[in-house]
């Protein structure tokens, strides 16, 4: 058989590797800043751009989409070419993909710092960026499928299945969750409201973990672990079951983020059942990865790459055991809204994604530069300091999370709540400090790696075009021995993609359709009315400042919560909430029943200096809200957009909304004046106060009319 000569494109792999390293450092630094802000609130600097509510989305987006995103592309572009024995389909598309993705990252960082946010976790980017992401993602898929169709290896290795499932599922998740009505160039409202928005968001949020942080990295595991250990994967049969079971089950598990919330009970149960089932494929994958090293454990002692990979796979195993445990309703009742969740995701992010990326980079760079790693000693130090960092990060937060939750739930023998919320916050300080130290160690390790890689690159000579040869595929397929029916899908990437899409679409459809179509899933409450224009503006400020990163708006039906906050939250209360703002973490207290709890002046002073109203508060001050004017000009388009989403404002209301807004603002300004606070009625603080004072009021109104 005649061998064809061709060249692998290493340049694109190199670029993605550099981008991974660079954005990794940036993302971790943002995370460290956010962590330190919880210990030293002064670091919020009293300016909008550096407050926690904006830094946190920058951190999460940077780590997920910039660090891990580039890491995925680095690994895919390297392994895909070699597994298929062909060059990438188009150098031009590779370039567009690379620069397009970096452009998105830069624009994302700028827009998040500026407060352009949709208010949906890990999907904060506004609609122009959503479109840009879609386009660049299509370029990635086009390039990948072009490569697959031109391959010289007939069979698609299991890693490629994971890449294909990643591509198709992320596309589906991103598009469905990003459906929104633009109000202006940098502002939009989610198409979904309340319970539906929550279900769609966590279907997305959970599967961003599944199909952005997990499946592509499992693909990398199936390629790079055998490569680094120089032995084939433990069981190919297991990898097939792993793949299908994982993508089939993962997609259903989203509602476990919404246990005990106002989401219908059957959806919560569905989420729990599938989450528990997820242990099987996850551990199947972990075992397959670790057992690949059977008989080669002596190598792990010598080879720093294998050390990183082993810890990564182990961290994956721990996180995927913990995940189903956290999905059990009785465990979730304790863990939800606490730092336990933060510890959990960081075992995944630092351990699984971080260490796998580091291992792959330590392996790739010397290969592509035809040299040895500059310093093995330094890499070993990185390994140990990184591992220590993970432990120091996670353990204090586990402790703190459980402690805080138990404090929230503790009653005195007389039946009173034992602790003020603030008591639980002050108790967190040492744990937050320890976490920041753990994070610092991890970052120091990454800096050492960057230095090591720079030195390695300098001493090596880069092979941009790597020569290779392989036989072209023959038109006629001759099976190895007896033909097998599974080849229908095995060798057909398009079929594989379609079947994957069907498999992942089933779960989403079954979860959403009933909540969208069956009215009784969200019983309406007649006293729940749309927001006034001023409240709507205030709500947008709430979203802009990322208040949801620390405050929930969801009282769960527990005695400890109804005693502390008031009546538990009902599905019907959120029907005009585009987007929903239930939150996922209570660094501060729940706000669902905040309205009317304090006078307007309390909020005014609290936003200016939180410590003055609640001593020991770690909330950042928001002095600019007192200065900045409300963007009155946007009111008309905002009301119009809400009407298009089905919010029942009266006919032509947008024309008179400004009057209503002024009237309500003047009332609040007059209220403040009574308490000795002089402010103009057109300041943002007034709108925010209007919104905060509205929270939970509708239900209170209904109760009084019922009596």
């Amino acid at each position, binding site marked *: 058989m005649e*061998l064809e000569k061709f060249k*692998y494109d290493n340049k694109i792999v190199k670029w993605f590797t550099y981008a991974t390293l660079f954005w990794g450092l940036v993302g971790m630094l943002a995370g460290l800043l956010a962590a330190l802000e919880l210990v030293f609130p002064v670091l919020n600097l009293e300016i909008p751009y550096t407050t926690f509510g904006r830094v946190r989305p920058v951190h999460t987006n940077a780590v997920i989409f910039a660090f891990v995103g580039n890491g995925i592309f680095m690994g895919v572009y390297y*392994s895909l070419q*070699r*597994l298929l*024995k062909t060059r990438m389909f188009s150098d031009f598309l590779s370039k567009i993909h690379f620069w397009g993705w970096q452009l998105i990252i830069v624009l994302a960082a700028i827009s998040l710092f500026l407060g352009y946010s949709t208010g949906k976790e890990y999907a904060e980017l506004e609609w122009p960026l959503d479109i840009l992401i879609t386009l660049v993602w299509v370029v990635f898929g086009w390039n990948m499928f072009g490569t697959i169709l031109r391959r010289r*290896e007939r*069979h698609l*290795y*299991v*890693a490629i299945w994971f890449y294909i499932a990643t591509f198709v599922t992320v596309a589906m998740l991103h598009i469905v969750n990003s459906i929104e009505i633009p109000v202006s160039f940098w502002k939009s409202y989610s198409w979904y409201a309340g319970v539906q928005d929550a279900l769609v968001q966590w279907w997305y949020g959970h599967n961003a973990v599944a199909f952005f942080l997990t499946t592509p990295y499992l693909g990398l595991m*199936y*390629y790079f672990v*055998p*490569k680094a250990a*120089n*032995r*084939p*994967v433990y*069981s*190919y*049969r297991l*990898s*097939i*079951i792993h793949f*299908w*079971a994982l993508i*089939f089950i993962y997609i259903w598990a989203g509602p476990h983020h919404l246990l005990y919330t106002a989401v*219908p*009970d*059957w959806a919560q*149960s569905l989420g729990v059942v599938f989450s528990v089932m997820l242990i099987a494929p996850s551990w199947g994958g972990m075992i397959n990865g670790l057992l690949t090293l059977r008989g080669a454990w002596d190598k792990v002692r010598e080879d720093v790459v294998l050390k990183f990979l082993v810890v990564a796979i182990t961290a994956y195993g721990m996180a995927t055991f913990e995940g189903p445990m956290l999905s059990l309703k009785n465990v979730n009742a304790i863990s939800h809204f606490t730092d336990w969740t933060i510890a959990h995701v960081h075992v995944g992010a630092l351990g699984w994604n971080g260490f796998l990326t580091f291992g792959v980079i330590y392996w790739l760079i010397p*290969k*592509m530069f*035809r040299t040895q790693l500059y310093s093995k000693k330094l890499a070993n130090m990185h390994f140990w300091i990184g591992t220590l960092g993970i432990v120091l990060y996670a353990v204090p937060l586990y402790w703190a999370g459980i402690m805080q939750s138990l404090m929230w739930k503790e009653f005195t023998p007389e039946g009173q709540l034992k602790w003020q919320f603030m008591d639980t916050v002050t108790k967190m300080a040492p744990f937050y400090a320890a976490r920041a130290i753990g994070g610092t160690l991890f970052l120091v390790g990454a800096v050492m790696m960057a230095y090591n890689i720079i030195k390695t690159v300098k001493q090596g000579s880069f*092979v941009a075009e*790597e*020569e*290779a*040869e*392989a036989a072209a595929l023959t038109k006629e397929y001759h099976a*190895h*021995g*007896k033909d*097998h*029916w*599974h080849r229908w899908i095995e060798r057909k990437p398009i079929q594989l993609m379609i079947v994957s899409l069907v*498999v992942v679409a*089933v779960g989403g459809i*079954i979860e959403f359709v*009933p909540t969208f179509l*069956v*009215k*009784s*899933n969200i*019983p309406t409450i007649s006293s729940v009315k749309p927001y006034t224009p001023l409240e709507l503006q205030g709500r947008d400020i709430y979203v802009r400042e990322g208040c949801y990163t620390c405050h929930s708006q969801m009282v769960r039906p527990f005695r400890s919560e109804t005693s502390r906050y008031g009546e538990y939250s009902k599905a019907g209360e959120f029907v005009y909430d585009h987007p929903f703002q239930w939150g996922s973490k209570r660094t501060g207290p729940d706000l669902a029943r905040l309205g009317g709890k304090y006078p307007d002046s309390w909020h005014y002073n609290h936003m200016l200096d939180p410590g003055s109203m609640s001593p020991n508060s770690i909330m950042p001050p928001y002095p600019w809200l007192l200065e900045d004017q409300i963007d009155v000009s946007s009111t008309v388009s905002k009301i119009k957009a809400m009407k298009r989403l089905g919010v029942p404002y009266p006919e032509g209301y947008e024309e008179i909304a400004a009057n209503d807004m002024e009237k309500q603002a003047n009332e609040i300004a007059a209220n403040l004046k009574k308490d000795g606070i002089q402010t103009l009625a057109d300041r943002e603080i007034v709108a925010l106060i209007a919104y905060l004072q509205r929270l939970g009021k509708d239900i209170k109104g209904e109760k009084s009319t019922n009596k």
Partner: protein
Amino acid sequence: MKFINYLESITGIGIYPLISLIIFFGFFTVVGIFVIKGRKEYFEYLRNIPINNQNDQL
């Protein structure tokens, strides 16, 4: 509200659990059969793809 209320409000609900069961059972049976009946040489070939690139220089 009890779970049953949601179920009863869907027309033709009886068929859904049956379909779910069939999808689940069918799906994993098919994957299971494939994996069990697959030929050893075939899987051997597949699992060696990543490390069988003897033509590669690296």
